[in-house]
């Protein structure tokens, strides 16, 4: 696990949550997971493919999502599955977008796929040779879980180096 690939996502999640909620967040325990990830509620999953690749999961329960939606919108939002899904997508897009900005400015070439939202069911496995970092953020709206599995794509790296040579 390369921390230089993980750190931008942690920084982005912390910054986006603090900025969007206009208040501090507390970063909870970090842990490495090799056996896959079991979402705590609704989860937005984003795949990244290119010179670096992997997947990011942003995960929270429905109550937290509705509170977040209200905080982001600036008015009270009523709970519905649509609201939960839209909140998760928007939050995932903001976190990934901010992290991608940092990674792209470091010269990595990759494509980010749109978020897919899933209701909690089953374990999500990482790639066979990649463990995932699990972290959570305590916010004024509730706990937000982020699970990051990233690695270098050595083949794409080698191809780019060959072209540049």
């Amino acid at each position: 696990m390369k921390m230089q690939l993980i750190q931008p996502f942690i920084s982005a999640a912390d910054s986006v949550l603090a900025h969007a909620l206009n208040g501090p967040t507390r970063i909870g325990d970090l842990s490495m997971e090799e056996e896959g990830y079991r979402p705590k509620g609704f989860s937005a999953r984003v795949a990244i493919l290119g010179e670096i690749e992997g997947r990011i999961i942003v995960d929270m329960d429905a109550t937290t999502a509705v509170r977040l939606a209200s905080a982001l919108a600036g008015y009270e939002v009523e709970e519905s599955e649509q609201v939960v899904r839209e909140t998760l997508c928007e939050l995932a897009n903001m976190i990934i977008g901010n992290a991608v900005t940092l990674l792209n400015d470091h010269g990595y070439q990759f494509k980010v796929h749109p978020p897919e939202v899933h209701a909690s069911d089953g374990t999500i496995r990482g790639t066979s040779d990649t463990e995932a970092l699990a972290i959570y953020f305590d916010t004024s709206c509730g706990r937000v879980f982020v699970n990051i599995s990233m690695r270098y794509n050595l083949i794409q790296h080698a191809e780019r180096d060959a072209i540049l040579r």
Partner: protein
Amino acid sequence: MKPFTPLTRKQDSQPIRYLVVDDSVFARKSLAKMIDTFGGELAGEAGDGCTAITEYTRTKPDIVLMDITMPQMEGIEAVERIVRQHPEARIVMVSSVGYQDNILAALQKGARHFVQKPVKPDVLYEIIRYVLNDDDGVPAPAVVTEVR
């Protein structure tokens, strides 16, 4: 959200009319709420670049708030097409993806400014005020809001 001094058009003191372009309904609602606090009027909404072009022609807004990553046609291409047809268009890019290539491309195609999501209302307000006063039509230097 705190109240802002209403922004109005110089020529007739009417509320500023906005076109909001974002594939996320949630993001559009959030921006519409901010526009309301700025004393503005929502002239139209679009969820992709193609619709943004037709909506611009239909509504002739004073300001366009444009996302970058969208289905069918992305924001930067939509900016290019709108500005080609309407050189007076004032378009502010609003995106979570704020790397330099994106910002430069948007400005080169005619966008006036760039703000990174999550958007702070007071930052967006100042940018809109700046763009409205930029009557020469010369693209302003990129301004990226720091997340923290």
